[in-house]
């Protein structure tokens, strides 16, 4: 199965940690796109709370939660175990057999069976794990139910999770899997683990280019005047991997060099205290606004007012926020972290600066601030055109249909 045009409805099981929230366009778009193309989608939720509102029009199946006292966990486990044996005896046996075949001890085999049994009763053509780590411990589910297995790597799971959990993908990487990654760099990094090139599909993220577009035409008239306050924006979660401390250090250099600027960081997150302290200690607290998490409408407003967009990440799968900024015609300066140098083409649609070097970032921002208006317009147009054509939702949906064929 899985070759040629869709002759019959394909059923895709999508495994996520939680139901996608209202603002998580990636999975929502993917589900809606597949449904529009005649696929049936079943959503498997492995960690999310049942209290979360789920407004997606597809079957949603949640994993049982083994919690409470030891007795409660035991009773629940016995119930799940016998339910699996009675409802899906062949799949359960196959799963067990595959685990034993890979050398898992008996206790582990039972534990893995209990953890995965909630997916056994669904005949699927594809079982697709939304993040790499979700496939860990579930490597044999697809084969047991007779489906093909797909795994998406999004960045964090490929680059950071293995540092925290060494060898976590050892079994996954010897299992027959079709991989989806966000960038060619990620593809190369995955191939290092012995994954054949043909099994890895690069499907870039996409944004709503109808929403994120310069409706006012303001960028046409936008010129960077040396005397005015340069408006710099970053949209990012306040997380160390976004490299915001380095960004703030670059802003300090700009201040020392007498560049009038204001830097707005849109987003919240665990590093708020660290970043506010850094801004204060670096003497740029007045030049920095922490705007917090904002609605797409307000993000758009900030982008409309921005002269330069900065994404100086330490680790980045691809980054939708940079696509949105480009689509709005904002000049983008990004780091060379993983997918970013494919997101922004250096000197064509923006600028790519080596990461962890605030001096270089400050220098690049200054160059951009003093850019010839015609060159700036050329770069803005090239960025808008590239994002509109190559990173729209329709394009992504088409790519995903192709992924399963």
């Amino acid at each position, binding site marked *: 199965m899985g070759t040629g045009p869709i002759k019959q409805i394909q059923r895709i099981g999508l495994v996520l940690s939680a139901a996608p929230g209202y603002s998580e366009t990636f999975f929502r778009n993917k589900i809606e796109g597949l449904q529009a193309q005649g696929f049936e989608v079943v959503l498997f939720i492995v960690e999310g709370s049942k209290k979360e509102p789920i407004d997606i029009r597809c079957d949603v199946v949640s994993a049982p939660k083994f919690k409470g006292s030891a007795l409660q966990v035991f009773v629940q486990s016995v119930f799940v175990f016998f339910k699996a044996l009675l409802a899906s005896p062949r799949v359960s046996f196959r799963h067990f057999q595959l685990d034993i075949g890979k050398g898992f001890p008996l206790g582990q085999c039972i534990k893995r069976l209990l953890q995965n049994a909630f997916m056994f009763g669904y005949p699927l053509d594809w079982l697709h794990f939304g993040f790499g780590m979700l496939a860990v411990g579930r490597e044999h589910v697809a084969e047991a139910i007779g489906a093909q297995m797909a795994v998406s790597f999004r960045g964090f799971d490929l*680059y*950071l999770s293995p*540092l*925290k959990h060494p060898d976590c993908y050892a079994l996954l990487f010897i299992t027959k899997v079709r991989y989806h990654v966000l960038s060619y760099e990620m593809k190369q990094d995955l191939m290092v683990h012995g994954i054949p090139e043909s099994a890895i599909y690069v499907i870039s993220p996409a944004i709503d280019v109808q929403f994120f577009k310069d409706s006012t035409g303001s960028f046409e008239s936008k010129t960077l005047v040396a005397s005015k306050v340069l408006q710099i924006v970053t949209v990012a979660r306040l997380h*160390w*991997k976004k490299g915001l*401390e380095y960004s703030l*250090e670059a802003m300090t250099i700009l201040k020392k060099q007498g560049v009038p600027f204001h830097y707005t960081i849109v987003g919240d997150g665990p*590093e*708020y*205290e*660290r970043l*506010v*302290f*850094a801004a*204060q*200690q*670096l003497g740029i607290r007045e030049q920095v606004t922490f705007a917090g998490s904002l609605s797409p409408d307000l993000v758009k407003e900030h982008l409309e007012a921005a002269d330069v967009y900065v994404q100086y990440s*330490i*680790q980045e799968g691809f980054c939708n926020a940079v696509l949105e900024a480009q689509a709005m015609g904002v000049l983008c300066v990004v780091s060379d972290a993983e997918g970013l140098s494919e997101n922004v083409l250096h000197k064509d649609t923006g600028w790519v600066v080596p990461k*962890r070097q605030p001096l270089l970032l400050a220098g690049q921002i200054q160059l951009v601030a003093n850019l010839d208006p015609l060159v700036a317009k050329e770069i803005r147009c090239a960025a808008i055109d590239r994002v509109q054509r190559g990173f729209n939702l329709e394009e992504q949906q088409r790519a995903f249909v192709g992924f399963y064929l």
Partner: protein
Amino acid sequence: MERPLKIAIYSGEIPSTTFIERLIQGLSREGVAVLLFGVLKHAPKYPESVRVLGYCSSRFYKFMYLLRYSLLLGLFRNQDKRRLDAFLRAYGRSDLYSKVKCYPVLWQRPDVFHVQWAKGLEDWLWVQDFGIKLVLSLRGAHINYSPIADPEVAAMYRRCFPKVDGFHAVSKAIGLEAEQYGARPERVHVVYSGLDLKSVDTPISSEDSKILRLISVGRSHWIKGYSYTLDACKLLKDSGMGFKYLIVGGANMIEYQYQVHDLGLELEVELLEGQSYEAVQHLIGRADLLLLPSVKEGIANVVLEAMALGTLVVSTNCGGMAEVIRDGENGFLVPIRDSQAIAEAVMRVQSLPESKLEAIRAKAQATITAQHDEAIMVKGMLALYREVSSE
């Protein structure tokens, strides 16, 4: 003869950090009656003059504990109890937990109530209404960055600091920080942390090695600035220098794990979990150079320990570090947030002749003996307690 003082030391938990425990022991040796309040994790062996009055965290224990002090206060000091209850109500803290915390202090009525962590200060202002003097230690995150990132904390400090009877500042720099929130300068007493120098076992000079052994010790927290030393390590590696860098307490922090991997430093850098006090002393003693890349500190105890142990120190010039280290004389100071400066300082150390390094080590040890002996710390704290209680 002076009346023996009754000092309550409150850090929230019993036992507390190494340095607070050292203070407790030192005060008891000076004949001071020390009272310890807070959650009792486990009771270390204290001398007779230390009374442990904490409570276990089980509900039953807390209930019995509250019952006991409610009865004692209700029967013998009912008016005081009613005044305290009124205070707690006024501050919206008339819950049972607040009473568990406050009733025993009211019953014991020490001369001085010494709060170790500033964020909890407002909970204890009431003690002054009962003639108890309030002393606050200025240390750590509570002063260094919490009020900067959290305007509510800063506002609370501005409300409460002017009322405090005495401040114990672990450095002059942190004392100045407190003055920004209304601490009256004449009430700020700088008492440096002290080491038990008798227990410091200076290691015999480390074995010769072409590989420079660098070490940092501290919890996995951004304030420790390890990203700067790791960036500096990359510069050192690129310069061709052979070195090993151990971060004790840096394990399990994915930011550092990724940075090590990203910069290709897997062979040079080791991230180790937190170790026992003895093991840390041993590791510092074996190292050639201790790096303190913190973006903020009071005075880092680990630097004092390294200097006492005869290990050279490169420290950022943050907080009160310049009150201990004089650059090129008894250690090395570099600007904060500057990887290049850290790398250059390490190279500078490596280029110095052994005789010069030995002189720096000797001066470092002399600084610790003169300024950071436990006896000096205890004497300083006693002077502070006596001053506030005589007012």
